[in-house]
Each structure stands twice: as structure tokens, then as C-alpha cells.
């Protein structure tokens, strides 16, 4: 009987037994990211193990190493919350000095990256360390119990952006760290999603193989913080792509004019000019994404807030050079 080659290595670096919540999308992201990294190191250096990890405090840190256990089968260091990129810089410098070839993977959540770790991230990118920074974006401080971060999307409920008589929930648009990272003119920046694992793995490998710093922002569902069904994590993440909420793109060397945008699927019509995506006509309304999550439940009594969200999404795509049309339900 013919055995099909698995689409990704069966080696595990993020081992079962970690204490993440059931249905955690970030755990999936880390599992795929480390496998992709290992494959890239094997292809580039002939050594699948040529990497180490520096990780910020956060959900994926707390659940991974509780003394005397660890889920990591790779050299790993956690040095507080705001400085995964700085710690990774030090590890990378020492690797160089000690003559060890390979690449360092830094990992942080959206709080540890978009907020408290922004400065350290900027420093690491600017200094051109040979580090891939992976931001797992579950769009709030989930480890401390669901508080808003600057990466929390407009309209979302969190414990520090509760909707009420005078509040629609989070009232600021999401901050897109990938664009800030790209402005450092580093070799490679990408957004990805667990809703498209093949695209995510390809991007992680690309990031791992470039010489110099790279940044990948991966969207991952958090059933606990998003109040969403445990079994629908990948489906929800995919809906974010298909409705226009989560753009998938790649920017090399800060060249915003030659940004590569991946087709979102879900029936969306993509218009290209000279190979460049200039317009997308989405077919699925964002309500399909929002309705599966308790964090957006209150918005269905405030349709004007959902329309405002559509305007913000259009504005975000405009920054990427793409005109989008977003349907309303039934359109």
C-alpha cells in the first residue's frame, strides 16, 4: 500500500501535555510554526534542530513550562513579558559568537508584541538580528483574563472594554503590527492565520530561511476569550479571511508597493492589475464571522457599529492598496 508523505514533518517540538485550553488556536499555531521552522532549518542548514526559542510571558508561555515539566523539545528561554525580542537578540548574538549556525525564533502574544514589547521588537528588527518574531494574535490579554490590547478589534467585548449604555465595547480600530514591522524594511513580513495552515507553514518557512529578521503575525482563535465554540477555531479563523476581517499578505524589504496579497477564498472576486491585487469583492458578510463569537454578540443590537466596522476594514485594506467591497447580510 502506498503511504502518502505527510504534508509536514512528524517531529514534535511543542509536545502534547501542555496546559492550553481545549480548542486553543494558538497552541495549533505554535505546533505548526515549530514544525515549519525545523523543516526550513533542515533545508537551509541540513540540521532540523538549528534553532532555539525566546518567548514572552503570555498564555503560550505559562501553559508550556510548569516546573518540573516542559512542553518544549527545543532550547527555550522565557525572560518576562516585554522583551522576547531583546532576549532573542542576546541568544542570537551568543549563537554567533559560539559558532552555532541556525536561527532564533521569538514568540509573543499580541499584548507582549503590540503593547509592552513594541520597543524591544523595533530594536531587534532595526538591528537586523537573525531572528524570526512570531506574534500569535488572539486579540486580547487572554492570560490575565481577557483584557483589551491595542490589537483588539473594534467592537469586541473584553473585561476592560465592556459594552454598556455608554460603550460599544472596544472603540479603537485594531493596530496592525505587521505594517509597523514592515516599515523597518526587514527582509520579510507576513500575516497568516490558522484558518489557512498551508499558507501559514509556507510563510513560516520563508521567514525562517531569509537572512536577517522576519516578522509573522498569525491570527489564532481563543475560544475562552472570544466566547466561541471549541470545535470551530479553524472555521472561525477561515471566516475572518473570507469576510475581509483578516488580510493575508507578505511584504519584502519594506516594499509596500509590491505587497503580495493572498486570495481570501470564500467566493471573493479578486481583481489584479499587473499581477498586483487592486480590488477584492467579498461575498461573505462580516456578520458570518461575528455571529460565532460571544465577544461580538452585543453588536447585533447595534447594527451601526457593525457598519462602522465595515468602514474601518475598508480603510485598513486601503492602506494595503486594495479597494474592497463588503456585503451586508442578504446582499
Amino acid at each position, binding site marked *: 500500500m502506498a503511504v502518502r508523505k505527510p504534508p509536514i514533518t512528524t517531529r514534535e517540538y511543542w509536545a502534547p501535555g501542555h496546559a492550553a485550553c481545549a480548542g486553543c488556536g494558538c497552541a495549533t499555531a505554535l505546533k505548526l510554526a515549530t514544525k515549519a521552522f525545523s523543516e526550513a532549518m533542515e533545508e537551509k542548514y541540513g540540521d532540523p534542530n538549528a534553532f*532555539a526559542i525566546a518567548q514572552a510571558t503570555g498564555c503560550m508561555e*505559562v501553559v508550556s513550562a510548569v516546573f518540573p515539566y*516542559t512542553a518544549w523539545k527545543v532550547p*527555550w528561554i522565557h525572560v518576562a513579558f516585554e522583551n522576547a525580542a*531583546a532576549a532573542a537578540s542576546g541568544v542570537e548574538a551568543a549563537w554567533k559568537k559560539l559558532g552555532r549556525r541556525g536561527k532564533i525564533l521569538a514568540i509573543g502574544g499580541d499584548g507582549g508584541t503590540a503593547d509592552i514589547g513594541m520597543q524591544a521588537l523595533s530594536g531587534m528588527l532595526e538591528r537586523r538580528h537573525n531572528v524570526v518574531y512570531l506574534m500569535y494574535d488572539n486579540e486580547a490579554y487572554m492570560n490575565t483574563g481577557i483584557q483589551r490590547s491595542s490589537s483588539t478589534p473594534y467592537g469586541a467585548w473584553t473585561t476592560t472594554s465592556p459594552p454598556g449604555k455608554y460603550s460599544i465595547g472596544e472603540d479603537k480600530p485594531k493596530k496592525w503590527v505587521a505594517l509597523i514591522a514592515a516599515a523597518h524594511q526587514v527582509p520579510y513580513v507576513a500575516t497568516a492565520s490558522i484558518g489557512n495552515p498551508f499558507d501559514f507553514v509556507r510563510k513560516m518557512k520563508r521567514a525562517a530561511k531569509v537572512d536577517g529578521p522576519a516578522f509573522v503575525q498569525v491570527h489564532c482563535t481563543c475560544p475562552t476569550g472570544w466566547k466561541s465554540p471549541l470545535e470551530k477555531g479553524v472555521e472561525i479563523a477561515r471566516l475572518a479571511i473570507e469576510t475581509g476581517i483578516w488580510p493575508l499578505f507578505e511584504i519584502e524589504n519594506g516594499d509596500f508597493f509590491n505587497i503580495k496579497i493572498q486570495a481570501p477564498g470564500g467566493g471573493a472576486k479578486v481583481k489584479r492589475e499587473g499581477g498586483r491585487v487592486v480590488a477584492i469583492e467579498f461575498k461573505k458578510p462580516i456578520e458570518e464571522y461575528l455571529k460565532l463569537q460571544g465577544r461580538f454578540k452585543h453588536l447585533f443590537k447595534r447594527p451601526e457599529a457593525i457598519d462602522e466596522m465595515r468602514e474601518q476594514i475598508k480603510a485598513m485594506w486601503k492602506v494595503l492598496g486594495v479597494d474592497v467591497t463588503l456585503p451586508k447580510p442578504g446582499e
Partner: protein
Amino acid sequence: MTEYKPIKKVVSGNYAAAYGALHARVQVVAAYPITPQTSIIEKIAEFIANGETDIQYVPVESEHSAMAACIGASATGARVFTATAAQGLALMHEMLHWASGSRLPIVMVNANRALAPPWSVWDEQTDSLSQRDTGWMQFYAENNQEVYDGVLMAFKIAEDKRVSLPAMIVESAFILSHTYDIVEMIPQELVDEFLPPRDPLYTLTDFDNPISVGALATPNDYYEFRYKEAMAMERAKKVIKEVGREFGERFGRDYSQMIETYRTEDAEIVFMGMGSLMGTVKEAVDVLRKEGYKVGAVKVRWFRPFPKEELYQLAKEVPAIAVVDRNFSFGQEGILFNESKGVLFNTDARPLMKDYIVGLGGRDFTVNDVRTIARDMKKTLEKGKVKEEVVWYHLKR
């Protein structure tokens, strides 16, 4: 053993620190500029630019990231050095705990500088003494020679497997950092004999034995981690003396004692303090001796670990101790005064002790000031009791 012929150089305290790091063959430096430390890292950048060393230099964007990068590099297995002062040290505070808790033998030079506000760049010890409880060893240098020697010894002590703790070498702002003096440097091959390459227990380069650094510990385990660190700091006392003795045997300058006594044999009054001001105090002791005062001086070299036994032995012999504190703990008293009184509590030693708060924010402290303190202390001794425990010595009235 090769015969020791020192290389004499006229250098600032900061350059002494940079040469110390160079001769210690540090492998990674991550640092951020801050007055009055900056010329240390400038000098190291110059060494690299001139091809004298291939240190990996990480010019980070803050002191917090400086120490985070040092921790990453040290955990990876490299010999790591950095330098800072005052505001920078305060920003690093969180990472100082992280370095010691991870048991990493990082060596840092701190140029003592007063903390703001009001803004100041001048000498004061409160910045480093505020880091008392971070689990770092602290050595206070009296002169540029001690800065250089201190850096070399600190690596050997910190990397000793009985210790595995970071160490801070403390020098005074400007008084040492920017003042040039003759420093006897040690030829590289002799430094290498004294200080072999680091031999870490664990590294972040060994994939076959991957380690996880910085895990969570529940209440069931955390307590023992702290106990082990406390015991390492206790063991450091023995290692400090061993290394200090070896240094003396090899290079002629003995550091086998955690405190240095000066003309204390028959002294009625002993002045006690740390850092560069002890040079002034020793000078004053010579003057006062000529004037008929029976005085001596005690320099506390190592503040952490604290030289408890040595101070007890001293306090048994001496009727009166005047502590000169270039620092202050609000709501209490000078920090060295407080610590040294504390170690005598459960003992039979009961000298009269007074605390003189001097030189804050870089105010000049001179031989004449020591003379005034001596007169005041003499009166206290004659009365046989301490009336005013803490004296704000320089106050403009």
C-alpha cells in the same frame, strides 16, 4: 606560571572597566549609553572597531533590553558584560531579579549616580543600594585599580559553580568614572591563567539536551528555588575570599577580605563606608592620627553578600563607629548604617554607632569633613551615648 610584569596605563575608571572586560575575554556585550557610564561601552566599541576583539556587541534600545539580551546570551553559554548607571539601573530592575533567579554569571559595572528628580548626573550610592534585594553580588571600588581588578575577579566568582550568580562592580560617578589614574593591568596570558573560559552547566545551543529556562514554579516549588539562591549567596563569601587570595598571590593586590581595615589596631573611632569616598577617609585618618586622634577606617568592599562576621569582629574591638553613607533610605536611615547595625543585634558587640549622610547628589566630601565628623564622634564617645543617630552632615543652615 609566567612571571608577572604589570602593564601600567593611565586610564579613567570607565576605561579600567572596559579593559577589565576585554582582558576577561567577554563574548557578548549588550548595553545602552548613559552618563557617566557611556565611555565604558564606547571603549569596547572601539576595541571591536580596531580589531582587538571580536566581542558580539548588541547596541540595544534600552537598559531593560540590555539586561534581557545579556540574560539571553548568558543562558546560551557566553561570557557576558554590560554597564549602566542610575536611571538605567532602575529601568533594569525587573531584569536584575531575572538574571540572578536564572543563576547567570553576568558581570555589570554600575557607575553610581544620583537618581532623579531633581535631575543629577553626580555621585551617590542609592541607585545600586536600591538593588540590594535583587540577588546580585555587589563590590564597591575605591579607585580605578579596584574597578579593573574587580571586573576580573567578579567573573571568576560569578562563574564558580558554587555561586552562579551575577555580580555588580560599582564605581563612583566622575570621581572614578572620568578621573584618570595609573592602573596596573595584567598581561593577557596571565589573566587567562587566572580566568579560564566559562564552562556553563547548561546552554541554549545543545539541542540534544534541550533546556527550558524561566519556567513557572507553583507554591510547591518556588520556595526551594529561593533557598538555593540564598545558599549560593552564602557560599559566595567563601569563594570571594578564595578568589581574592588567589588574585593577591598572582598579582600582588590582596582581596582575601570582604572588608579592608586601615589603622584600626588601637582605634577608638572607626569610619566605615564604601567606594571612592574611602580614599578621602584614609587620607583623613593619616591627618587625624598626626593630630592625636586614635582613628581608623573600614572599607566595606562587598555589600552583597554582606560581611557579617568581619563586621562583628571589628565591632567587638572598636568603641565607636561613624558610618559615612553616600545614600539614604527614606523613612529609615543610611543603608550601610542600617545593615551594619542589624548584623550586631544578636551579638555581644555594642559599639556606639552614628550615621553621617554625606555627599548626596555629588556634593564634595573632603578630608576636613572627616575631621569634623571625628570631633563630633569624639564628643559622643565622651558622653558614652548616641543622642542623634542620623546626621545630615552638609545641610545648609
